[in-house]
Every structure is written in C-alpha cells, then in structure tokens.
C-alpha cells in the first residue's frame, strides 16, 4: 500500500512540477489578469481536512483495543468531515469565475484541484466500505487490515490536500512579480 501510494505521490509531484514550471515560464501569474485566489475559505477547508485525521486515528486505536462501537462512531465522524469538505470544494468550484479552458493557469488550477477531489472521494468510498464491514462485524482486535488500509489512504488524501493548498494558494506568492 505504501509503495502504491509512493507511485501516486510521484504523480502528484509531477503535476506540481508542471504548475511551477509553467508559473516561472510566464512573466505574469495568474495569466490574463485573473486575480490570485483568496486564501480564506480554502484555509478553513484545509484545517477541517487536517482535523479529520484525528477521528481516523482514533478509529484505528478503537479497533486495536476491540471496541466495535467506538470504531463505527469515529469512522462516521471522519466521513461527515469529509463530506463537508467536499461540499466546500464544490462551492469553491462554482465561485471560481473561470473554466479550465481559458489558459494554462486555469487548466492547472482546475486539474490540480480535481486531483485532490478525486483522492478525497476515493478515501470516502473506502471509508464507507469500511463502515459497512464494521457494521457486519468483519473486524477484530487481531484482524483489522481493512481499517488500517482505509486510514492510510485517508492520510494520503490529507497530505495531497496540504501539498495542493500550498501549490495553488501560496505558490503564486513565489512569483517574483508579486514582490
């Protein structure tokens, strides 16, 4: 799983590489007079995302000690946070004011954001599957590989969110034209 994630992380690194390469390639960034994206709401989303690691961690601890009810509770808490974040992202997309096909900047912004959204959706699907199996009583203190793997992917989605927040919202501040 970790090896698989390192391949996906390389995919993310390649996309971030593309973003900065094109940013430094252009004398103006964002292009065509588009304003730099506001940091406020995405920062709140990021804080929620980071906070969501706590219930995921606690879910793993609970099943490690054999506490089934706690496992279900913490998994559900994480799922609620995940859905709220997805909702905020959907609102963010709606309020963007540009589409992917305007110029290279908008193409990058939409594609990289979508990459995070897709990872979050997969993390949520895994979370729901784990919840279903938790209700069916598939896990025990000795055997809960499924919980561990779903948690690992959730952490990955969080890491991906942090990296892309830094790239898309803080990255443009590195542009020499800003200083």
């Amino acid at each position, binding site marked *: 799983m970790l*090896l*698989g994630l*390192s*391949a*996906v992380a*390389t*995919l993310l*690194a*390649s*996309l971030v*590489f*593309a973003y900065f*390469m*094109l940013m430094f*390639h*252009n004398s103006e960034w964002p*292009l*065509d007079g588009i304003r730099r994206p506001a940091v406020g709401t995405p920062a709140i989303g990021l804080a929620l995302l980071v906070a969501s690691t706590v219930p995921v961690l606690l879910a793993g601890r609970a099943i490690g000690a054999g506490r089934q009810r706690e496992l279900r509770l913490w998994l559900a808490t994480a799922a609620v946070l995940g859905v709220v974040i997805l909702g905020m992202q959907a609102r963010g997309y709606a309020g963007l004011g540009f589409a*992917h*096909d*305007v*110029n*290279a*900047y908008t*193409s*990058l912004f*939409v*594609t990289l954001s979508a990459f995070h959204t897709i990872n979050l959706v997969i993390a949520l*699907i895994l979370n729901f*599957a784990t919840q279903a199996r938790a209700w069916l009583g598939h896990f025990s203190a000795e*055997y809960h*590989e*499924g919980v561990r793997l779903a948690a690992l992917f959730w952490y990955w989605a969080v890491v991906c969110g942090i990296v892309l927040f830094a790239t898309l919202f803080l990255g443009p501040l590195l542009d020499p034209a800003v200083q």
Partner: protein
Amino acid sequence: MTTTEDTRPSVQTADLDRAWATPPGFIGWLSNVNHKAIGFRFIVTAFIFLLIGGLQAALIRTQLIGPEQGFLGPDAYNQAFTLHGTTMMFLFAVPMIEGLAMYLVPMMIGSRDLPFPRLNAFGYWLYLFGGIFLYWSLFTGSVPDGGWFNYPPLSGPQFRPDTSIDFWLLGVTMTEIVGIVGALELVVCIARHRAPGMSLNRIPVFVWGVLVTSLMILFAFPPLVAGGLLLELDRKIGTHFYNPMAGGDPILWQHLFWIFGHPEVYIMLIPAVGMLATMVPAFTRRGIVGYPLVVVSLVAIGFISFGLWVHHMFAAGLPALAMAFFTAASMAIAIPSGVQVFALIATLWRGKLVWSTPLLYIVGFVLVFVLGGITGVMVASVAFDWQVHDTFFVVAHFHYVLIGGVVLPILGGLHYWFPKMTGRMLDERLGKIAFWLIFGGMNLTFFPQHILGFLGMPRRVYTFQSGLGWDFYNLVSTLGTYVTVAGFLVYTANMAINWSRGRPAGDNPWDAPGLEWATSSPAPAYNFAAGPTVSSLYPLWEPEGAAPRGQPGLLDELQGHRREIVGTTVLDAEAIEILELPGNSLWPLIAALAIVLFLFAVMIDSIVLGGIGLGAIVGSLACWLWTGSERTHE
C-alpha cells in the same frame, strides 16, 4: 543439499495439487492467477510483439535501402517508426522483463507464488488489451505517427485532431499502469517472501536487478502517466498545458517524458544485466566475481539514472548550468556500468568456460554493450551532442545499447530458462546459428549508421537523395537487417520445434546453482512442496548437508490444503508468518475490461459509455476486494 527435502511429513503433494489446481476449460484458463501461468503469458505475448516490432524495422530499412525509394512513402514510414519504437519499448522490453521476473523470481527465492496473484492476472489482461488497443488504430486508418515520444505541438489538438495520438496515449498509459502494478508485486515478493536464510547478501543478482528496477518503475512511470493525462486533457477538453499561445509550454512534455524516458533505459538494462550475472556461473563453473560490487553498482545506476533526463534535451535551449550538471551525471553513470562489465569479464577470465549458446549471448552482451556505452559517453558531452543530435549516430548508439544491453540478454535468458518452462532443451546447433545471425546482422545494420550520422544523415526522414555518400552505408545497413531477421526466424523456429519435441531436460540441465533449479522442470503450480531454506548465494552448489541458518521451524506448519506462502523479514529473511493466498478469480479480467471500456468511451467522446465504464471499474474492484483478501496465520 538442504534445499530439496520434499519429505516433511506434514505436506501431502496430493493436497497441494488440489489446492493449487486451476479449473478445467476456457473459463478456468481465464481465471488462472498462478505466477508461472501469468509470467508465461507475458513472455509469449511480449515475444510476439518483439517479432511485430522487428517486422516494422525490416519495413523501415527496406524503405531506406537506396535513395528515393517509394516502398513505404512518407506517411507509412512515420507510422512504421512510431509503432516500431512504441512496440519495442512499451510492449516488448518492459513486459518481457516483468514476465520473466514474475515467472522466475518466486522460484529463485524459494516462494510458492507472488504475494498478490490476482493483481498479477489483472496486470496481464491490461497489458494485452493495451497492446490490442494501440494496434486497433491500424483498422481505423488513423495510426499514431508522432514518434515514440510524441512531442507536442505535433501531437497536440491543433496538428493531430484525429484519434491517432489518442490510441497511442491510452494504449501506452495502460501498459504504464501494468508496469507499476507488476513492480509493486515484485518488490513485496522480494522483500517479504524469500526463503528462510536468504539474507540480502544471498539474493541472486537477477532478483536484485528486478528489485532495483521495480523501485525505479514506481518513481519513473508516474511522470509519464501525468504527462499523458495532461496531453489527453489538452486534446479532449481544451486545456492549454502544452499550448504556448495560452501560457503553456511544449517543453513541459519533454521534461515529463524524459524523466520517465531516461530511467526507462536502465529499467530495461538493470534486470538484463542481472540475468547475465545469474546465468554466468553455470557456464564458467564458478561464482560471479565481485558480487557485492555488482549489486552496489546496480543500485547506484538506479539512483544516478534519475539525474540524466535532460541529456535528451540538449538541443532544446536550456540554461548552460543545467546542461553542465546533466553532462557530468551522464558521464558518471559509466562508472557503475563499467563495474558490471568488468565483473562479467573477470568471471569469464577466471572460470572454466562451457561454450553453450547462453554463454555466446553473455559474451555478445559485453562486446555490443561496451560499444554502445562508449558512444553514450560521447553524446553525454553537449558540444558533441549538438553535432550528432537527430542524426543516425544517435540511432546507432541507442540500438547498440538496447540490443546489446536488453535484447541479447533476454534472448540468452530465454534460451537458458526454456528448459525450466517446458522441460525440454533447445537445439544447440540452431541456437548457435541464430546467435551468429542476430549478432552479425545487428552489427552490420547499426555500425554503418554511426558513419551515416557523421555524414549528416538525419533520422526520421523517409528518404534521401543520391550523391551524398550515403547510398553504400544504407544498403549495408538494410542487408544487415535482413540477416538479423533471418536470425530471429531461426531462433523462433528453434523454440517452436523443441517446445514439445525437444530433448527432455531433466530438473537441472545446466548444473546451475540457483534455487529455481531445485524443483522439477517445469515446476508444479506450488513450486516447492516443502519450503526450501538457503545458506549461501549458490544453494545447489553447497556441499551435502550444510546447515541452514535462520529458523526453518515455521516451514513445518505449512499446510497442504490451502494456498500458503511464508513471510520472512526484509534483511535476514527469518520466517515470521504464514500467509494464505486467494485462489483463481475472474474479477481481474473483468476489471481490466471495465478499464478498456472506460478508455474507449474517452476516445469516442461518449459520456454515457464513460459513465457505464467508470461504474463497471468501481463495481468490479469492489467485488474483487470483497471476495477475500490475504489472511495471516501467525
């Protein structure tokens, strides 16, 4: 010999046969997940693609046999060299190496199977469909023709609005995913399922090579997947990543492509060298000289190869500092490569040579690869590179590297492990004839191309005019190709004839030291009835009764009625657990078909079909995961 005690009381071979059996009939064949069945399918399919790619090479050379020929014409010529490069790199070299690794690695390290058998089967189906997908373009009339690297803007939406590049992008992306999936599996297998006692310093060199290559694949293939994704988005939904008119940059593709493309060369070379170093003891009757140095240099090549990609872009107008750095790195990689060549030469020098066909391929590798390496150091220099960039000199250089460093080792390896796979020997006389035809033919083909490059003949141009001094060298080069083709025909005929009619091989026809020869040839589905233990690098050459190290006690608990393999620690390979593997399944095939359906929908811009495909992917993966994962018995 401590490795072949099939007499432990707890294991009944009848139970094992039942637990590892494949259901009869076509459906059973489709659901087979055993590493040898899947590895063998990879090898056969990749070999067929090698023959197809070779045929394209013959077409290309026939067009260039003399000045102003009309055999192919410019369009067909572009398609031929694009498909030749793509087939050889994506559909032959990497799948062939992964197929050999899937087949051989579990046996070489004393395991019964790979740890994720269904993932393995999924990889094969996706590879087969990816190859068919790419070649399907032949029937639609829009065949990819942008070269094996498909640089935009030529491959972008403005200049290639038809579906040719889509076939290429989606087909290649599928084979990239196959590479990643196979790599994951091989890394876990090598790290966690070696026979007890096979500590890091007792791993066969081929297995080391596969480990290094697999780790490289995990970091080299995703950039091309990313690059391909961005290009497909540019082509399909109007993004502007590579469009300079809207702030994009085609050089971005070159970076992403070569960050993949340069490690790719070593991804093919490292296991090929490992193969030779694993075969050479059988033909020199001694161990490889400098085993630790060979392994360390394999690892070093793995790292350095990620710092070379810009040398493919010296003519793209990059900063001088970058070019200086990449020149230095490109020259530095000659050092570990040299260590390996010298280790092979020293082994040959100190050994008692047995001149069987595989040894010819080993010596052929040394000769051809060194020539390719020397021209490689030459083009690493920016000043020289600018002179020969895009000429036939470069074509000659990389064919020497790839034929010497990849094709010859693979041909030798297939000759060497053919008895392992079929229980039959290949004919030595035909084998030697094939070697000399291929070896002579390839030198005749590519040596004159160095001179053509110096004379200024550009690559990828479908014809040339007479009076430039190029006629004679082109003629020789084309005749050499025909000799090579004849060699491949002999090689293939040798396999076809001796597949079922060859001399019976016995279990260890070469008297080789590797663990893969400790079981019968061909091996049963479970490889080893009792888990073997290992106490040296050459387990079959140990004196009778050498004591195994580690704690083999756990092996006695292996059950016969389930598919079980032993889990061992990463460094010292001490047995710590027994894992139960899942059995035959059709879900990998269905998941691969779902992915093909989805990509086909992308291709024809059908949102409905795309939705169905996406749903089918999620559904089949869910069924796959739900139907049981590996279980551990501590």
